[in-house]
């Protein structure tokens, strides 16, 4: 039997693509070697957010409840039980994906897929090898944790994010190598649960791609919580020859050229992710990769080989679930023969730190590089009634406005719930909304989204709820 389309990998890129293909009436199958839902649902976005939320609740009970007149005697965290709750959340979601695939008449084929030729896929599973033929293939195999030879993971005390999201006992001293969003999110969660957490980062700043003023707010909170940041610091390896059997690890680091040692009982290596583009037989069918192994695609998600498409993490940054899903929808339309284009202005994204960070559109540096003259407007959450009433006043909203046509060029937020607030800003950027559009839209009171129009007003020195400080336009 020949399918119209076969999707390889059932992550947020692949399953979304397959469901849409099914909706469009194409005979579709999806091959998954592991669990449906991919990294995102099983060992990424969802379990990490569940754990972060649980840790945050524990932290609030301990540190904030009393101020509001609530006394809880001796709160305890049963990490095993917390993980059970998290696993339940994951199960519910992945079960739902399975049902959706079925409801849209997508065949789920279990096994490891690899290309035999341009129209045939081999699928290897415990039950032996089978073959699937199709007119179109969508490679959505995602990415995996990057490893370093001198920091070999052992799944026990030198671990990746996957094991870090499933620890049953709380590490006393957790050292995290890599201050990207995964390291920061997991680090803050364990700090809230009671671990002593250190983050080792090679660059001058954790979350290096985000504007310094936003990261500063998170750094202050980290320090307040007792976390230690080692920036401009390189991990070099362990003093122990057999880390797995050591009860205490000694991580060798180089800080500003000076050798130091950090003690830990668990080390999390979160230095990035690399595309799953090997072992797929891509070279056999001639699909081109870039120097980092990412599959090259054009504006329609097509690879250089006719009938083979690629989406999501396996095509390189930005490695985000919602980008993978958007690509999935695009490619499904392309395969169906509908007109479709990758034509978004922005891929918004969020760091689920405390407080959260979320950005969309251009950063100040990027706007400057493009020769766009812009105004900056800013609104601190300390002036928001809602933020005060939820006891979360750290952070601000920063808006960049094009001087020429007053359109919203970029929005950068740090503060409570900003992972949710950024959606409105992304819509504004995508719609080409102007400053006036934002301030003419009534926002509910008292809510956090009020910060957006206030920040826009501030750029014109007309903010109501903050002092208007003239800012230099760029």
């Amino acid at each position, binding site marked *: 039997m020949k399918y119209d389309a076969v999707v390889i990998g059932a992550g947020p890129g692949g399953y979304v693509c397959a469901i849409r293909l099914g909706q469009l009436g194409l005979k579709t199958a999806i091959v998954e070697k592991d669990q449906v839902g991919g990294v995102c649902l099983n060992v990424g976005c969802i379990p990490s957010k569940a754990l972060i939320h649980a840790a945050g609740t524990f932290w609030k009970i301990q540190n904030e409840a009393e101020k509001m007149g609530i006394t809880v005697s001796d709160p305890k965290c049963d990490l095993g039980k917390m993980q059970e709750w998290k696993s339940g959340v994951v199960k519910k979601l992945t079960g739902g994906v399975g049902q959706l695939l079925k409801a849209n008449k997508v065949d789920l084929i279990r096994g490891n897929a690899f290309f035999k030729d341009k129209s045939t896929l081999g699928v290897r599973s415990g039950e032996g090898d089978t073959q699937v033929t199709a007119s179109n293939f969508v490679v959505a195999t995602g990415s995996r944790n*990057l490893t*370093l030879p*001198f920091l070999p993971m052992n799944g026990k005390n030198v671990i990746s994010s996957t094991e870090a999201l499933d620890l049953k006992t709380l590490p006393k001293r957790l050292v995290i190598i*890599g201050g*990207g*969003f*995964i*390291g920061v999110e997991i680090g803050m969660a364990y700090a809230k649960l009671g671990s002593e957490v250190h983050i080792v*980062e*090679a*660059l001058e700043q*954790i*979350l*290096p*791609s*985000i504007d310094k003023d936003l990261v500063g707010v998170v750094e202050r909170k980290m320090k307040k919580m007792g976390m230690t940041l080692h920036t401009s*610091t*390189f*991990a070099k390896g362990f003093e122990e020859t057999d880390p797995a059997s050591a009860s205490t690890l000694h991580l060798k680091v180089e800080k500003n050229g000076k050798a130091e040692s950090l003690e830990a009982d668990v080390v999390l290596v*979160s*230095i*990035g*992710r*690399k595309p799953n583009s090997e072992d797929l037989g891509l070279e056999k069918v001639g699909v081109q990769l870039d*120097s*980092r192994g990412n599959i090259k*695609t*054009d*504006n*329609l998600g097509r690879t*250089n080989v006719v009938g083979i498409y690629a989406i999501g993490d396996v095509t390189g*940054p*930005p490695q985000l679930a919602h*980008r993978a899903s958007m690509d999935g929808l695009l490619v499904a339309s392309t395969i169906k023969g509908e*007109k479709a*284009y*990758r*034509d*978004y*202005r922005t*891929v*918004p*994204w969020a760091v689920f730190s405390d407080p959260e960070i979320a*950005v969309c*559109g*251009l*950063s100040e*540096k990027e*706007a400057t*590089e*493009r*020769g766009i003259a812009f105004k900056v407007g800013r609104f601190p959450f300390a002036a928001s009634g809602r933020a005060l009433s939820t006891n979360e006043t750290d952070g601000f909203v920063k808006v960049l406005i*094009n001087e020429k*046509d007053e*359109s919203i*060029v970029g929005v950068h937020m740090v503060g409570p719930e900003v992972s949710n607030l950024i959606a409105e800003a992304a819509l504004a950027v*995508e*719609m*080409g909304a*102007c400053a006036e559009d934002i301030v003419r839209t009534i926002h509910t009171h008292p809510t956090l989204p009020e910060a957006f129009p206030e920040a826009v007003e501030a750029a014109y020195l007309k903010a109501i709820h903050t002092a208007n400080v003239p800012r230099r336009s760029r």
Partner: protein
Amino acid sequence: MEFKLPDIGEGVAEGEITKWLVKAGEPVKADQPMVEVMTDKATVEIPSPMNGTIDELLASEGETVPVGKAIVRIAGTGDSAAKKPSNGQAHAAQDRPTSRPSTSAGSTPAAASATDSSAEVLPFKVLATPATRKLARDLQIDLSRVEGTGPHGRITKVDVQMVYEGKQAATSRSSHPSPGTAVATKTKAPVSYVPSGSVERIPLRGVRKKIAEAMIRSKHTAAHFTYVEEVDMSEIVKMRSAAKDEAKARGIKLTFLPFIIKALIPALREFPYLNSSLDDEKQEILLKGDFNIGIATDTDNGLMVPVIKTADRKSIWDLADEIETLSEKTRTGKVSVDDLKGGTFTITNAGSIGGVFATPVINYPEVAILGVNAIRKRPVVKGDQITIADMMFLSLSVDHRVVDGADAARFMNRLVYFLSDPKRFVFA
């Protein structure tokens, strides 16, 4: 900043740098054309995204570069940002994980929207909602050329629809192309034509534009004349029929074209001026040692001429096979820039559609083009008998600056000599 070759059009993966319009050390203004890039679809000018100074040209003329590769470094005026390590460099650390463990780079999705050059070209320069942008793409309308009627110049769906229907002259912004956006070269003064009745305005773009330019250049440069002769193809028709089974076994579609090429080569050898071009500037005629035969091919986008390289060294089977793959590639838009270059003589086959004969336009700077026409059974007089033969007209257009009528006629005689009896080109 490093400026990357932007996405110049759907399905275009690379472009040839044909001409730099700026030099290192020179100042540039935002929107000032920097470089001319030729793709297999069209030649475009790419404007600068910003005010600044050209630091370094990173690609040389004649070089073919993939979309997304840096082609020029520009230093912004009063903008030190360009010199600071950028996101890109932070990510570069990932390339060498063993030598310098960047502990963060990879795990940060970073650079999300802005540096994903494939994702967007126009954004932040033109105001339009996603639905309007989709409509514009569907109708192939360049938003940078549409005057927006909304607040702050926002382009509405109605604006796009109006341009499509020709109700708004989409030229108002043409002198200010958006940075990074490919804009067709040389905007000509608009010809005023007052339409009466219903008129659909279709922008002259891409392959159509390239054809228009090439035809004008040829007609304005070469002194065309066309010479017509007929030839009895009966022997070749027989020879081809005899090879039918073998063709089937080889999986090759055997047309008359390979036979015609085979007959053409010895004739061209005898008349090297037909396989030449004229260098106007140096006032020299270049006699070409290679026999690279262009095959005029009809595609959905318009006429394209893929080239069979060193046709003189290929067998009939090789030629048949290559013609089939090349024309398939051309028709499906997968032909490479290389496949379209280097021709020394062109054949155009009008006969597959119909007609007695055509007067082809020379594929300049070549000096001759052979039109082959339909093979039809016709009564012919042989000796004193009327017989039925497979007859074909040949129409040869030649640049009179290089080849005189008498030589064209002599060349045609030799071609007819070879074609009328394939044994002759086998021996040639």
